[in-house]
């Protein structure tokens, strides 16, 4: 092989190595450029927590002192196609004239909906037999934490509940 031919081959190899890197780099760039808007579209709405809103759930005289009842609260900004799922159930108890306590229905074990047993004054979880006392403390079974609560207040004649993310996982 002549010297010239050798330099030409070396040049060619350099050129190939360069084109190889260039193509890989550009492909990576294309991927990056495309994935930024797509990932942002998918992820950011999830990470934006909606602020809590005080919702009227009825006038004080609709609740009897000492009674625990299931009430539904509406999602303050639902998706138009959310149907039944715009509503969330909570357990509300009137403890005194202006004293109310609101519990989430989600068991702290694995989020199954707990049932209030009016006479026994306990919340029973249908999934694995978790039991909570009337004040939300764990009475038996696998739940690791007391029943999560919602903030409640009385404004004039209205009982209001502060909306929050469904208490699944850390409370």
């Amino acid at each position, binding site marked *: 092989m002549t010297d010239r031919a050798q330099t030409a081959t070396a040049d060619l190899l350099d050129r190939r190595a360069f084109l190889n890197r260039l193509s890989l780099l550009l492909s990576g760039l294309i991927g990056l450029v495309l994935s930024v808007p797509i990932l942002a579209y998918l992820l950011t709405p999830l990470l934006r*927590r909606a602020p809590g809103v005080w919702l009227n759930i009825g006038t004080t005289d609709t609740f009897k002192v000492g009674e625990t009842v299931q009430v539904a609260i509406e999602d303050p900004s639902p998706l138009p196609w959310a149907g039944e799922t715009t509503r969330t159930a909570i357990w509300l108890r009137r403890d005194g004239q202006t004293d109310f306590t609101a519990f989430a229905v989600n068991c702290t074990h694995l989020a199954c*909906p707990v049932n209030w047993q009016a006479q026994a004054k306990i919340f029973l979880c*249908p999934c694995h037999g978790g039991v909570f006392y009337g004040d939300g403390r764990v009475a038996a079974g696998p739940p690791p934490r007391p029943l999560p609560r919602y903030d409640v207040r009385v404004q004039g004649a209205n009982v209001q509940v502060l909306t929050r993310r469904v208490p699944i996982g850390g409370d």
Partner: protein
Amino acid sequence: MKLLKRAWAWLDDRIGWSSAIWPIVVHPVPKVNWWYVLGSATLIAFIVQVVTGVALAFTYVPAPNAAYESLDFITNRAVFGNVVRGLHYWGSSAMVVLAFAHLAHVFLIGAFKFPREVNWLTGVVLLGMTLAMAFTGQLLRWNQDAYWAVSLMASMASRVPLVGDLLVDIIIAGQTVGGATLTRFYATHVFLIPAAMFVLVGLHLYLVIRHGVSEMPRPGRPVNPKTYRQEYDELLHRDGIPFWPDFAWKDVVFALVTGSLVLLLAVVLGAPELGPQANPTNLEAHPKPDWYFLWLFALLSYAPPALESLVIVGLPLLLGILLVIVPFTAPAGERSWKRRPWAVATVVFFGLSAGALMWQGHRSPWAPVLHAEVPASVSGDLRGDAARGSALFASEACLACHLVGGAGGQRGPDLTFVGDRLTREQLIWRILYGGNNMPAYGQMLSPDDLDALVAFLSERRSR
């Protein structure tokens, strides 16, 4: 006729059927037995799922305000709708069963060894995806079970260290399980996982062609990576048979049999009951997964609370890791199960424990029975305190967890003959202070009610 021939010759030249594809179709494979049909049967099941899934997607509406109704329409009004849904449902069961059978077979005949380690790995990922499909598909029913199963799944995900809360956000996609959640599962079930599965199935098949169908293992003929390929080639030369049709006919026959079975189930039993529609304010829920996840369901219920997060997060991880390291723990050596007692023991162990756990999961004795009533055979001729105690036993929710005369829950001990075992004092003590997973009723019972309950219970004797 001539024209047709010329047209075919033209097409054949352009697509390379005779030169490139046909040789693959008739490539030589070793003589193997019927067990080797399991892989292709899993593939056929996958194809059935794709076809029926596409058909269902023509009608299904993935939005909480319409999903249930669209499924109801498919099931009860669309022509053959119930059969198509049934095919998709029973087909998924078939696919899970076949995939696990294929896995067990490949494991037992040591076909994961050199040079087919990556065949195994792609298979393991495909298995995981198959289960993910089964789970996400169940949620699309958008009935009560599905709704609460999403919450349950999110709650399990929240136990993952560090990223738990983020995972919950990703799963439920909003403040509550609702509008954004269902579309998420729909996209995952219909586009994301299937797309990945297509790629992986392609890879899996390509690898089967590249390394050849493993020959039947013979005891005393270990795999030696240095000589294996040469031996395999010699074997193919000596007594290989063309894949099509000499082996493929078995695949076809088996596919026909399993396919007919699935169709039969779809026609006779149809799709599973939809049950009540998903409704966050309907708290009457007893979420139970489809059969393929009952083992996990049971395991969770039996795990002691302290170990629970470990079971939820660690167990699936551990099983996954075990599956991944299989080909690396024994890449060479004996293939025959007759010389691998531990392999046989492993399959038997996992088979039996999965079976036992699924049975327990199906019975779910740990779940309280709400709204149970004391049977008349017990309460029939009670009077006074005991009669009042019997009523209290139900209304105070004791019956939710305890059996009396065959009715009630099985979470706590059977109290049908508790009077034989415990004295009045012991009964009072247990009721007031609870313990052993029983709530303390001390603050909740009036002394009168306690007396009545104890009167009722101490009369529960075998004589």
